Each structure stands twice: as C-alpha cells, then as structure tokens.
C-alpha cells in the first residue's frame, strides 16, 4: 500500500485574510522517519505563513543537503524552491535575493549542512546580513547517513551507537551573534507555542534572522544519553521569556501586569511581545546575550527563545546600495546600458 493524505480538511478551519486555506501552505506528505522533529518545524512554518497571510508564490525556500534540507518539499508546495548543493544554501539564497529582493527567503539547513560542510558559507551570509530567515534543524547527527555525530553534538552526548562524542560542539547561535546577526533565536521542535511566534518574527525581521531549532532524530539520536533527544531537551529547556507575535495594526487584547512584558518593534510595524521571566536580560545587548548562553550552558541547560534582537543593522542591499527595484524586473537596457555608459564609468574611475 502507498501512503497518501486524504484531501479533506476540517470544515471549520477557515481561510486566512487572503482567502487561502491551510492546504495552500502545505507540501507533499513527509517521507522523513515517523516522529522526526523536522516535521514539527515544517508544521510551524506552514502555520506561520498561514497566520501572516503570506502569498505562497512570494516565498522562496532554499535548502542544502540532508534530512533537514529535504523538508522544503513538505511545506509551502506552492512556493518557489531550490534544493541546492551540500552547504551551499547561503550562496544560492544570496544570488536569488540579489536578483529578486521582493521575495521572502526561507533557508533551511541542518547541523551538518551549516556547521560542517557549509560553515564558510554560513559565516559569510551572516556577516553580509542577507535579508532572509535561516532555520537550522539541529539534531546533532547525520541522520541521512545513519546517525554519525555532527559538529553540534555536545561533548559527552551519545547517540544510538552509544559512543560519547569526544569533541566540543559548535554553538550556532553564539557563532551567529559573533558574526553580527540582528535576530538570533533558539527553539525546540517540540514547542510550537514558542517556535511559531519566533518564525513569524523572523519573517518580519529586516535582515538576517537566525533560528537554531533543536529537532530530535528519532531514529539515531533519541536516546536517554543524547542531549538532543526529546526527553533530555524537554528536561533542560530554559527560556529567555515567552514570546507572542503581534501583527501590525492589531490591538493587544490581553493585559499583562506592568513591567512583566516588553515590546520589540519589527520592521513592518508588527511587534514581538516578550513576557519576561526570572532570568530576564537586555535582548539588544550582544554581551548580555553571549553571557546568558554561556551561563545557561554551565547549568547544563539549553537557552531557548529570542536571544538577541537588533533591528538597526543594515541588510546586504542597503550595504551595497542596490536599486530598490528587483533586478529581475529591470529591463535589458537598464541592466546593461551599453558600451558608452561603461566608457563613461571607466573614465570616471581613471
């Protein structure tokens, strides 16, 4: 027997403001292992785009190689997509973004695709502050090649094979912070309440938005000895505060006691409402964010939630001063004005 999803949806699950049903945001049925955390992240992306009333055809999803990079097939089936070369998602996204700055770019990568083979690409795309959402589906292993430890596997963590990792792990959030990302968050595939608003805010963030999502590999890395299994992660979560995404022009209907929440303005007028908790710190302070990641780690915990937010950083287009209009909409004449203009330009540089 084959494996198909029925075409019926809940009759009371209505369309969003654009008139699209949730079905317009779904993709093909997942072929990942049953219980894979990545499927939950896909579901969160679907939900976020549905709630934000995005038009699927104005989104491009770009990925590299790996289990994580297969997922764009399973969400936003009506969006543009490019399943690229291993570790090269950032280059392809950069190219696409330069050609058409009007699309929303969702880059999906894994711990191998980002922290190993694609590390150089990752570093530079952060540094250039490309306007995109960069999601790492981080399971600490190479699931597609039978679960070898990846560069994000914590030292001492043992997967199904039972051999503890001897190397220190790479913390992608810390790396992103160091390289100047304006939006850095970490979440857990099993916590959609946190993940979905984080994705929404990342979409609305102008510039590079990075989310490292711990996403258990049920097949190879969901053992009690692994720091990336469902149980361990759940037991060791430490949130920076709970977040609510408030779309622009909508009223905040819930009252929170004074001093317990903080609003973070996003580029298009929407806001991120942050409920502080006991471990509150200044989210716009790079130093505080770095400190908090480290101090949480010392407590053997994983810091999740929005870790750092700075809207003022200029994105690639602003930095290199490209034209407002997407390049793919410019005419041949505008893009290639001819030898006379070239001569003039050359002359001006002599």
């Amino acid at each position: 027997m084959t494996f198909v999803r029925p075409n019926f949806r809940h009759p009371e699950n209505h369309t969003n403001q654009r008139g699209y049903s949730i079905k317009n945001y779904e993709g093909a049925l997942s072929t990942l292992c049953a219980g894979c955390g990545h499927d939950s992240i896909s579901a969160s992306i679907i939900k976020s785009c549905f709630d934000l009333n995005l038009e699927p055809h104005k989104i491009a999803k770009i990925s590299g190689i790996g289990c994580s990079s297969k997922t764009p097939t399973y969400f936003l089936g009506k969006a543009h997509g490019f399943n690229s070369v291993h570790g090269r998602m950032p280059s392809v996204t950069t190219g696409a973004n330069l050609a058409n700055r009007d699309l929303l770019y969702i880059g999906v990568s894994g711990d191998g695709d980002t922290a190993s083979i694609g590390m150089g690409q990752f570093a530079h795309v952060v540094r250039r502050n490309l306007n995109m959402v960069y999601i790492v589906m981080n399971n600490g292993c190479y699931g597609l090649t039978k679960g070898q430890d990846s560069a994000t596997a914590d030292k001492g963590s043992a997967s199904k094979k039972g051999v503890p990792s001897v190397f220190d792990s790479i913390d992608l959030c810390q790396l992103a912070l160091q390289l100047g990302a304006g939006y850095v968050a970490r979440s857990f595939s099993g916590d959609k309440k946190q993940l979905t608003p984080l994705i929404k805010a990342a979409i609305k963030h102008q510039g590079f938005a990075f989310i490292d999502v711990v996403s258990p590999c049920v097949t190879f890395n969901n053992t009690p000895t692994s720091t990336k299994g469902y149980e361990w992660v759940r037991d060791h979560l430490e949130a920076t505060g709970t977040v609510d995404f408030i779309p622009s022009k909508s009223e905040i209907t819930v009252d929170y006691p004074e001093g317990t929440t903080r609003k973070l303005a996003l580029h298009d007028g929407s806001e991120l409402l942050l409920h502080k908790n006991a471990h509150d710190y200044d989210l716009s302070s790079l130093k505080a964010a770095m400190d908090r990641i480290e101090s949480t780690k010392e407590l053997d915990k994983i810091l999740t939630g929005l870790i750092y937010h700075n809207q003022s950083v200029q994105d690639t287009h602003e930095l290199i001063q490209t034209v407002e209009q997407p390049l793919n909409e410019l005419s041949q004449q505008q893009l290639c004005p001819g030898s006379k203009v070239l001569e003039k330009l050359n002359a001006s540089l002599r």
Partner: protein
Amino acid sequence: MKPTDTTKPEYFHKVVDCQYACPAHTPVPEYIRLIAAGRYDDAYMINWQSNVFPGVLGRTCDRPCEPACRRGRIEEEPVAICRLKRVAADNKSDITHRLPAIPKEKNGKRVALIGGGPASLTVARDLMPLGYSIDLYDDQNKGGGFMRSQIPSFRLPEAVLDEEVNYILDMGVVTHFNQEVTSMAAVLSKQYDAVFVGTGAPRGRDLPDLPGRNSGDANIHIGIDWLASVAFEHIDKIGKKVLVLGGGNTAMDCCRTAIRLGGEDVRVVVRSPKSDMKASPWEIEDAEHEDIPMYENHNPKAFVTENGRLVGMVFERVEPVFDEQGKRSLVPTGEEVMMPCDDVLMAIGQLNSFPWIERNLGIEFNDWDMPEVDKTTFQTSLPHVFIGGDAAWGPENVITAVAHGHQAAISIHHYCHGKSTTDRPAPEVNLTSQKMGFHDWLYDAHISDDQRHVVALIDKQKAVGDRKLEVEKGFDLSQGYEEAMRCLNCDVQTVFETDRCIECDACEDICPVDCINFTDNAPEDLLREQLKVKATNKDQDLYVSDELKTKRVMVKDENVCLHCGLCAERCPTGAWDMQKFLLHEATAGK
C-alpha cells in the same frame, strides 16, 4: 477532564456514528468494506444477522444512519448506506445454507406472535434456532405486515419481500394467516409460554368532524387502508383528480400510487410549511420527480359534495408564526382555497389500536388507553405478554421494529428459562489491530473524494404506467464499489496508549483535520475552546489521554476524524494504533 475510559464499548461504539444511530446497531462500515471487496454474501449475512431484512431495508429504510454519517459533516452528503445495503442484497448468491440450523428437537416452549410484521418476524428469527415452537397469527394472507400492505411494489418488489419473509417462515413457523385475532383472552387460553404482540399502528387518522365527511365518504379514503387494498388488489383505479392530505412518507406513497392507478391531477396538501413535512427528504424528492405538486400551509376546512358525491375540498391558507420561545403556530390568513377533486386520500397519522385486548387480563393500560410496556424488556404487566414494533409506542419504522423484536426475543428467552428479563446480555465486542507492516493496514484507508453517487431511476413514463415496476435501479457493481469507497471506516478506531507517547507531535502535525491536540488539561467546556480547531459539536466526544510526561494530555476531537490512520502511520513508538471495533448487538441465546 478525566481520561477517556475506552474499556467500555460505549465510547468506541459512539464513534461509529452510523452504527450507533441505527436502532438495530448494524455494523455498517464492516459490511460496506465487504461490498467494496465484492463479498456480497458476507455483507448480506452481517446485515441479515442484525437487521433481518436487508433487501427490504436497502430499499425502504428510514436511514437514521445517514444523517449521522461522519462523511456528511466533512462534505455535504453522507455515504449512501441504505442503497449500499441493497447492493449486497441484490448481488448475493444463494445464502440459504448460511441460515441458522433449526433444531429438530424442540425446547418445549410455545410462543404466539400476533401480527406478521417485522417485529414479530424478528422474534421468530431469533427464537426458532433456539428450539421454540412458534405460532404466528395475521389477518393478511401472507407475512410481512405493513411492509407488504403499505410499502408500494414500485418501491419494494414483492419478490424481495417474499424472499426475506420466507427465510424466517421456512424455519418452521406455524402460520395462521387470514385470521384476525379478536380476543387476547382467547390467545391466552391456549397456554402459550409467551405471547408477543406486533400488530403495528393499524388505525389511520380520520377527519370525522369536517363538514361533508359523511356525504363524501365513498371517495374519502384512509391512506394506509387504501394502500393495503391496492397491495391486495382489491382496488385498481382512482379518480382523475386526487388530493392527498398529509406530509409524511405514507402521503408520498399514496400520491405516487394514485398516479399509477389513473390519477392525472394528484396533489399533496399539507397544513404546515413544506420544510416541516415529516416525510424523508428523498421520498419527497421521488414524488416531485414524478411531477406531483405539494401545496403547503393549507389547512383542510371542508369536503365539498354535490348530489352526495365528493367534488372538492376547501382549505384555509395559514402561515407559520413563531413566538419568543421559537414555538410555531399556524395562523389563518383568512384566504380560502377550493380544490376540485374526485378522491381524497388521508395520510395524516396512524394510531395504535387495541380493541381486541380485554382490559381485565392483567395487562395494564395507561391514561391514553395504551398498554404499559417496559422500554427495555418490552414486557407488559402480564409477565408473559410482550409488545414491540409500532404496537408498543406508536408508528416508527421497520428498523426500529426489528430492534424491538431482537430485544423482545431476549426477554422472552430469559422469561421462558426463569431468568430475569431485566438482566440484559452484553454485546459481542472485538477490537483488533489493523497493523500489517510498514504503510500497510488491514483496511483500505484511501477514501474516495467523489460526491455521493445518485441512484439511477427507470424512465419516468414507464414507471408511472406500472404500479409493480420498481422505480429505482439500484447501484450497479462499479457504482456500488465507488460509493463504498466513500466510507471513512469510522469503526477503525484511533487507539492511544499514553505510556508509549514521546510527545514528538508527529500525529498532531500530520492530522489532515487538526483533531489531535497536545494541551494542558481543563474542564470539558474549556478544553473544547482551547483546541486547535474549537470542538463545537458537543454530540461528539473528546478522547482524552492520561497525563503525559510534560503534564499535558492528548485530546482528540472525534467530530471529523477521517480515520485515515496517518497519526498511527507517523507515530514512531506505536502509541497510536488503528484498531477495528466490531460490535454485534446481543441476540437471544447468544
């Protein structure tokens, strides 16, 4: 909410909406799957065991199952359950060898059945295999009761009825046809161990006080009596202009019979708005298909006669007015309408009637002069007298009569063997995992997206020319298959085991209808509000798990679950399993 107790059959039974709604609790999805598999004999026998008259019901059932069908909540139309039953009946081979054996050695208990309709026949069907000796009394010349006298042959061919009635009579029931029982005392004097009354609701309502009723009598007929006379071929024609009073199924049968017996201008006239007519929507549709007009909001005022002959009727136009409580009253508009006619058929209700039960026998009668009958045991205050079918509490339908018959047979069996009649046997229940392997289930979860298939009819001109010609052609085999594939397999239950769940959310993510939730527990009303899609249909239960490791619970709204099995398919630990729930109602001796 407390965790759902699935150890009691009630919970999963309720999920199988069609079976739960059926008075006889026929395992509908089970036989629909057998039809899809081309196993018509097996599908027929499941029906036969449960509802006794699959061929009859596949044509005439009131179908309480269909409005309940989950498919009707997911798209517009339910599965055509009733007509699928007919597919099984029409395409089966000879099943006589599968009927229960009748012991040669009798158990020495004698039972009298009064009335030969579905209730009595069901009692016979259940008791004969247990060795009872049964006498059946009926004033008609054949068995079947109202199924024979009131359902016209163009809806139910006589051969179909004969076949299913005879399966039972051939078990060795001693029939006393053409014999009207006029005294219960006389029956009781024959020393039966038990007597079952299944005499239906044989008296049609009249309008005795309407002016002109007496002088027009020759052309004013009680609908059910007139239908019976047609069925037994005492009547074969009617006037050209016919008025049928009433908006129930009998009215629909009357008007359609009238145009077959020479009626040219046949009208149905109802007091209420058309939307409130009691007839099943499909029966109204069938009458309208034969170009019979319905006049709504017409209250009969008088029969008009000329020279002692009926020439028409006067009606007063009314309009429905609703008060603050939403209660409807029909208020006269003052306008009067005269409709000329040659004959009037009154189909405005039926009553039970027990002039033949003496009131001094120990059978208690209530304030409405109806016998007191226990709702569970069907026993009267005279312990060895039982009443079921329409005779018990007024007109219902064939399938309800069958359900009564099964229950009464249980009571009679208990009574005859000195067991308490209130001691009811539990249903036979089976819950079987459908898991075969990777992506492989014992049931076919690939439901069809087709809309409900329409049953083809024979040519209209041909149909109205012959009273005995069956109008519906029934589904052919491929249509039957296609319709069967619309069934959602609601009997294949989603069974959740809390201990195995690792809360990976895979089921929640994959569920196409968003019915699975992992959430904090709360009282039911609150919980219904906080689900991903609010659970607004309170007739449908919430399936709540034990507390999970994260202190949350799994809550599944059963309302529109497609039973597609994707939750179980995507579950890495087997916390979800698809298990077929098969419930057979208990019958006497089992």
